[in-house]
């Protein structure tokens, strides 16, 4: 045994101690509070998505002729196919929810401020990638709602000034939903976007690692208390626990509220009520409130503002010391987003 280890050590010159030191980042004590683990949660769920996604791809066929049938096969015939599909669906939902909560936590604790502006922007990119993965994944089922959701979604991009038509054509692989569309969505969903997410996550975590986790001090903290604890094994065990809780939650959700099959996509008839996935309710409602171009431009502007918010916030705080503008803006944004989502959820049209 020791010979084998020695043999390996000669060929892979990594020192175990050094490795432990490198990973053993000191973790600020506030991470003992559960809500500060919302960053690790989407990362864990991302791994779940990769695993279940690869499994689903074993049977999924990305062509408009066979897609629905292959999803039906997974759901109804393959052993545990319904379970894996349910886990994939619910992990997606939880992942998006966790990403949003993570972003809110970062925002309200001001953790995006100097020197972490760039990491906020990386996070924004991750958010966009996550939402796009959700959109393309939903379309792959090729049932009525997902088909029409994709059609409407693609047509919305057409309203982007100047580049609209180009974007739509790039997304659909043609002027309308056609034989190439589904394979495009599939490659985006299963290869392009996940790889992008992995790369961005790498940057995201490296930056955290280089800058250290934002340290927060709470009033109830005892003065003499240790300010840090070890990532390994202490925080690692916490993450393991969160992972297990998520797996239990996913299994129960997948069993109790399984992913079902709507009617097969029919390009000749639009269902009476069409809705995107819940995380697009905000944009869907927004589009109904304004003319398409206005809505698209305003949403683009809001997204851009979110992206550069650390810089804007920096400028504000420079001008007015101790300004709490960010809290108020944040509160307003949360209320608006929740309000629009609930509104969309409770009306048919």
């Amino acid at each position, binding site marked *: 045994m020791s010979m084998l280890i020695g043999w390996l050590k000669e060929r892979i010159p990594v020192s175990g101690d050094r490795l432990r030191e490198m990973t053993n980042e000191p973790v600020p004590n506030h991470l003992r509070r559960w809500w500060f683990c919302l960053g690790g949660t989407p990362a864990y769920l991302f791994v779940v998505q990769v695993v279940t996604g690869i499994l689903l791809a074993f049977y999924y066929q990305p062509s408009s002729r066979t897609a629905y049938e292959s999803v039906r096969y997974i759901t109804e015939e393959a052993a545990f196919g*319904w379970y894996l599909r349910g886990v994939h669906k619910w992990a997606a939902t939880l992942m998006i929810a966790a990403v949003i909560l993570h972003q809110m936590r970062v925002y309200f604790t001001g953790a995006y401020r100097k020197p972490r502006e760039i990491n906020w922007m990386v996070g924004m990119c991750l958010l966009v990638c996550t939402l796009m993965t959700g959109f393309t994944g939903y379309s792959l089922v090729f049932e009525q709602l997902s088909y029409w959701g994709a059609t409407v979604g693609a047509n919305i991009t057409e309203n982007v000034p100047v580049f609209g038509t180009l974007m739509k054509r790039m997304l659909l692989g043609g002027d309308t939903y056609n034989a190439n569309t589904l394979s495009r969505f599939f490659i985006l969903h299963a290869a392009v976007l996940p790889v992008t997410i992995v790369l961005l996550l790498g940057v995201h975590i490296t930056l955290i690692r280089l800058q250290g986790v934002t340290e927060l001090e709470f009033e109830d903290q005892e003065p003499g208390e240790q300010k840090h604890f070890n990532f390994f094994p202490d925080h690692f065990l916490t993450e393991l626990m969160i992972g297990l809780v998520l797996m*239990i939650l996913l*299994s129960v959700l997948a069993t109790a509220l399984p992913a079902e099959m709507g009617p097969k996509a029919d390009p000749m008839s639009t269902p009476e009520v069409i809705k995107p996935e819940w995380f697009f309710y905000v944009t869907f409602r927004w589009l109904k409130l304004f003319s398409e171009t206005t809505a698209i431009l305003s949403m683009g502007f809001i997204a851009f503002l979110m992206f550069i918010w650390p810089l804007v916030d920096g400028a504000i705080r420079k001008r007015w010391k101790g300004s709490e503008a960010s809290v108020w803006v944040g509160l307003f944004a949360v209320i608006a987003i929740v309000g629009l989502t609930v509104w969309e959820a409770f009306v048919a049209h």
Partner: protein
Amino acid sequence: MTLTTKKNLIAALGGLFLVSLVLVQWREVQRREHEAGRGEAAIPVPASSQACVDCHGKGTPGIVAHWTGSTHAEKGVGCVDCHQAEKGDADGFEHYGAHIATIVTPLDCSRCHKTEYEEFAHSHHAQGGKILASLDNFLAETVEGHRAPFNPHSPTPGMEVTQVNGMASAFSGCQQCHGSKVGFQSTDGGVITLDDLKPGPDGKPTVPEAVERIKKDGTGRPLFHASTWPNTGIGRLNLDGSKGSCSACHSRHDFSPRRARQPENCGKCHLGPDHPQEEIYNESKHGVAFRDLREKMNLDAKEWVLGKDYSAAPTCATCHMSGHMQNGGKVTHDPGERISWTNRPPISRRMDTDENHAIVTETDPAKRRALIKDTSEEKRTRMKQVCNHCHTPDYVNAFYQQYDDLVVLYNEKFAKPGQKIMDTILKQGLRTKTEFDEEIEWTWFYLWHHEGRRARHGASMMAPDYTHWHGMFEVAERFYIHLIPQAREIAHKATEGGKADAGKAVDAVIDEILARPEHKWFSEGAEGQMDQIRKAMEQRYGKPGGAP
């Protein structure tokens, strides 16, 4: 929280995860069982028919859906297997690389269903098309319509009518049950039928000149004449010389035995004023039991043998066609095999049949015996085997006694006398040979063709109301109140018009008939009879008002 606590918690959560996965496993098992119960067998589309299914699944999804649910589909019998045509068939045409025919005839079905084809071919059903030159057809083509197209006499707003098709009643009425003589449009505007094609025993036409005259569309598909197709009449005369249409009972394209087992299937044709078999069945105890116990009829059974697969109630098919425990489950496609009377003609005949399965009309006993191949008693024995599944022999025999008595009563009291009167009038030249141009001809037709059959059919299948009120009561009224007075009137007019001999001859026949004991009451009154009846009643029930 200490590390140890965390580790213990993780162990517990791991266990909980396992528990949730056990839940998943439980669901999976449940799902598998559910699926096994549903057990829908995969329908393999035969490679030869894949192209048909691909295209027709979009164009005519109903046809494909029906086929998909059929036993044919289960066993891998595809579109081409039935619709294939051979080179030289009059109706064959190229259709996307396959040489096919539109109409699948019994001869085509016989490629696989040989026994059924043969049984059907010598059944009375197969002769259904023979009415094309009969009294019924004369009614539809001449009395109700006109044998040639004629001009309209005033405009029809909203529709341009250039010609009236005088045969419409025959095409849409008679022939939809009895069967049409299938025909193509010819290039000269006529119809090409088997009479022109003269098919040989293999079904192929022997007159190439006639084949050449068949009109075709742009793709080479021969065009059928609308007067003859669509048609699924049971005695259809097909282009290949075969008779009938299997889909008359086994509707295409699912060819469901289930449907053929149910009375409604026969009821497409066996209903109405002249042969209300379906209504009679519905009135009978048999029909009542069927409606009540329908879900116990095991209608989807593979064999559907009475006594083995079901016993709840008999349907038309049960008694006349289906297999049962006493004949080894043998189905027959000749429903006449178990019928001992034919009640179709004016005077009922015993079903003694010759080698061609035709009824023997010979009256000389010795000659008759020699001709008969299958007696009516043998046929009745076959039917009794069915009855015996639910009834004792005494019961069955007594029923047949009741049935025979009613048929004989009708024959002797009304049918034979009526026939004799009609024949005498015709022989004396007091009515024309043309039917339905004189009132008495309608009267006589009503008597035997409608009312007389209702009475006999009612008795044959235990429907008392049809036997009596819709049957014998109306027969009697028709006879005494219409036929006799009309015959007397004809005799009277003949005598006055200088044909005294003819008038006397008719009167003599009527007098002879009415002098018979069963008719005496009509001329002599029946007061005495009423007294006799009253006395008998009093003997049985006591005097009215008196103590019992």
